[in-house]
């Protein structure tokens, strides 16, 4: 299906787009960043958002959002909160809730949307996607007979890989942007040129200049600020101690502690801790959790750095172009929702409880000095100077970078400590590349972002085992691909799915049995070799989402799915072989050139 531009051409035709985002505020901010990037390329998009009532204030401050539909959860569920009832009364109350929902949805259903984006990736949002009419739907939806379905390839990837807890390295903001841009390119046409404005901006939100905000702005303006985001009580005392280090070593900087308006309880008791510490009052500010979104965003936007251990502010700072310094602990799943943009830093520590303020300062100081022209020292030198135990507390520290377009674009987290790559990190890198080949049709230079120094004997041992199991998987998938192709050819020759010769019936049955056996084998291999689990889950979700009303159509989609999987495992194995090759000792091609100039005479 395509979206047909009206007579006045694509550029002047409004394309009505509805985003459903009912997940957390962090996800909402990521969605906004993705939408902003897309809207710059397609200015004729008219964006409407359906979100939780709590998020209404945030969305109303985004000037390019045409309409906000705030889901009246309390009103909808009110009939259901009437205490203990008989089953008949409960059913009647549910009907009342349903009637309220239908009435509320009425005006949204009456619009024929050009694009409907469900970026909540939840069950509830999938029902809404199924209910609302749209020319193009992206994200999760629902079919009575099939259950939850993916409307497009990237949603399939999110469901099988991200929600399926498989290591991968594509940031969610990049996934959403690419998903929508791909759909627009297919259904609308190429984007307009000259959209080079940055997506992130201090003016991303049109913040209201309230009296209180004016007061805070006055206090903050003209000074350099480092913000410490409250929210994780484990870090609160460490923030105060670290702030003390910042204030003593950086006389031109001020410190602001930011309450978390999304989780006010988490900031309780902080003021007492702060009062007990002897921080210089004239260089320290505390903004309580009741500060509201305007002031929070305004303060985050006014800081040079935001130091945080919680996620929503990471997205807020990214949107506003404020540099983030993140402090996270294991288990860490930040690749998909870490800070977006260039020059953010974060580290993953072993345990937040035993983490010292000196280590936080040492790492932040390294990041802070990054743009100082004379900085030549390595991270290890900073540890030596500020926190000798840092290396035992930290697992890895990362710096965010936007890849050049020719290398695939998107954000990338460069590890800064010289620590060997784990099998999960290797898998994340490779599965990310497999996904790019599947859904963007673009293949990265093999070995990109895998260096020889990062390969440990342990990783190589695991990769050698994986070499054998992935070879087996490749054979299974290649066989499945050819079987499905032959099956498709056979099914195409049938005059009817319902009436056929006995020989045809048994031949087709035989194809079905063969595929079933191969499916079982695929499952056994992937379950026995955990690093291959991604292929199993992608396969399961793909097969669940097969479309078609006839045998021929189902088999055709099935054949395409096996082709994709077979191509994927081939790419996977190319990277695997490359990595194993990388570890082998290399013979120097031109020994003479590798000899330092002062020693060259010795070999002649």
């Amino acid at each position, binding site marked *: 299906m395509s979206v047909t531009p009206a007579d006045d051409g694509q550029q002047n035709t409004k394309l009505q787009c509805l985003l459903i985002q009912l997940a957390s505020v*962090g996800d909402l901010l990521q969605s906004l960043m993705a939408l902003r990037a897309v809207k710059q390329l397609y200015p004729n998009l008219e964006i409407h958002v359906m979100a939780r009532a709590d998020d209404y204030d945030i969305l109303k401050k985004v000037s390019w959002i045409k309409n906000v539909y705030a889901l009246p959860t309390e009103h909808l*569920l009110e009939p259901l909160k009437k205490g203990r009832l008989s089953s008949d009364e409960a059913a009647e109350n549910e009907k009342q809730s349903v009637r309220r929902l239908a009435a509320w949805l009425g005006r949204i259903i009456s619009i024929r949307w050009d694009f409907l984006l469900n970026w909540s990736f939840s069950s509830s949002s999938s029902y809404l996607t199924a209910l609302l009419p749209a020319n193009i739907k992206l994200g999760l939806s629902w079919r009575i007979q099939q259950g939850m379905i993916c409307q497009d390839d990237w949603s399939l990837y999110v469901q099988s890989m991200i929600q399926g807890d498989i290591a991968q390295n594509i940031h969610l903001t990049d996934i959403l942007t690419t998903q929508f841009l791909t759909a627009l390119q297919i259904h609308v046409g190429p984007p307009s040129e000259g959209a080079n404005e940055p997506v992130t901006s201090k003016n991303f939100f049109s913040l209201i200049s309230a009296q209180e905000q004016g007061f805070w702005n006055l206090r903050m303006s003209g000074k350099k600020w480092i913000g410490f985001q409250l929210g994780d009580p484990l870090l609160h005392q460490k923030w105060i101690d670290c702030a003390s280090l910042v204030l003593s070593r950086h006389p031109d900087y001020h410190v602001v502690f930011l309450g978390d308006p999304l989780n006010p309880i988490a900031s309780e008791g902080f003021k007492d801790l702060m009062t007990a510490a002897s921080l210089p009052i004239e260089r320290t500010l505390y903004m309580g959790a009741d500060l509201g979104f305007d002031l929070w965003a305004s303060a985050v936007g006014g800081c040079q750095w935001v130091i945080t251990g919680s996620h929503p502010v990471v997205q807020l700072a990214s949107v506003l172009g404020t540099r983030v310094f993140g402090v996270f602990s294991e288990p860490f799943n930040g690749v998909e929702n870490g800070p977006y943009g260039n020059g953010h830093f974060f580290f993953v520590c072993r345990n937040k409880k035993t983490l010292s303020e000196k280590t936080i300062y040492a790492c932040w100081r390294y990041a802070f000095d990054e743009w100082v022209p004379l900085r030549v020292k390595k991270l290890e030198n900073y540890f030596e100077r500020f926190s000798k135990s840092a290396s035992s507390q930290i697992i890895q520290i990362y710096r965010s970078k936007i890849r050049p377009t020719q290398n695939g674009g998107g954000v990338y987290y460069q590890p800064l400590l010289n620590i060997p790559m784990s099998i999960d990190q290797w898998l994340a890198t490779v599965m990310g590349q497999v996904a790019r080949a599947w859904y963007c049709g673009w293949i990265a230079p093999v070995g990109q972002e895998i260096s020889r120094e990062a390969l440990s004997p342990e990783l190589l041992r695991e990769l050698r085992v994986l070499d054998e199991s992935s070879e087996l998987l490749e054979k299974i998938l290649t066989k499945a691909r050819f079987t499905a192709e032959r099956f498709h050819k056979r099914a195409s020759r049938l005059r009817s799915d319902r009436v056929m010769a006995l020989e045809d019936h048994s031949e087709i049955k035989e194809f079905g049995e063969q595929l079933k056996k191969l499916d079982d084998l695929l499952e056994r291999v992937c379950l026995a070799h955990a690093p291959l689990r991604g292929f199993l889950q992608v396969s399961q979700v793909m097969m669940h989402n097969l479309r078609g009303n006839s045998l021929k159509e189902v088999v055709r989609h099935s054949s395409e799915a096996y082709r994709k999987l077979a191509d994927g495992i081939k790419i996977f194995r190319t990277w695997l072989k490359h990595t194993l090759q990388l570890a082998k000792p290399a013979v120097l091609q031109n020994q003479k050139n590798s000899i330092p100039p002062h020693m060259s005479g010795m070999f002649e």
Partner: protein
Amino acid sequence: MEEGEKLDSEKMILEEKAEVEELLVRFVRALEEEQSQTRTSIQQTKGMIFKKPTSPSSTEQIRELLDQSFSTRSTEPIEGTEEKALENEVLAEIIPLSSMQRNRKE
């Protein structure tokens, strides 16, 4: 509109209405369930889908379609079988529905 067509279209409307009602009910229930929890991000739903099996797989779908089919000795209509084949086709339109429903329940 022919009587048959009218019945078909009414049946479709009724089916659509039932589908819409089911979706509305499902949404209300899901919303109620979600309200008792903290709002989750996509990250926090990791592992969500593989707790319950995703089905049907391709082979199950193919098998389902095959179950619905009727076999004859030959695809070429032989004398007297054309009508029978047509009759089978009509029957197949009805039977698979119940077999599909049975499969779904299973």
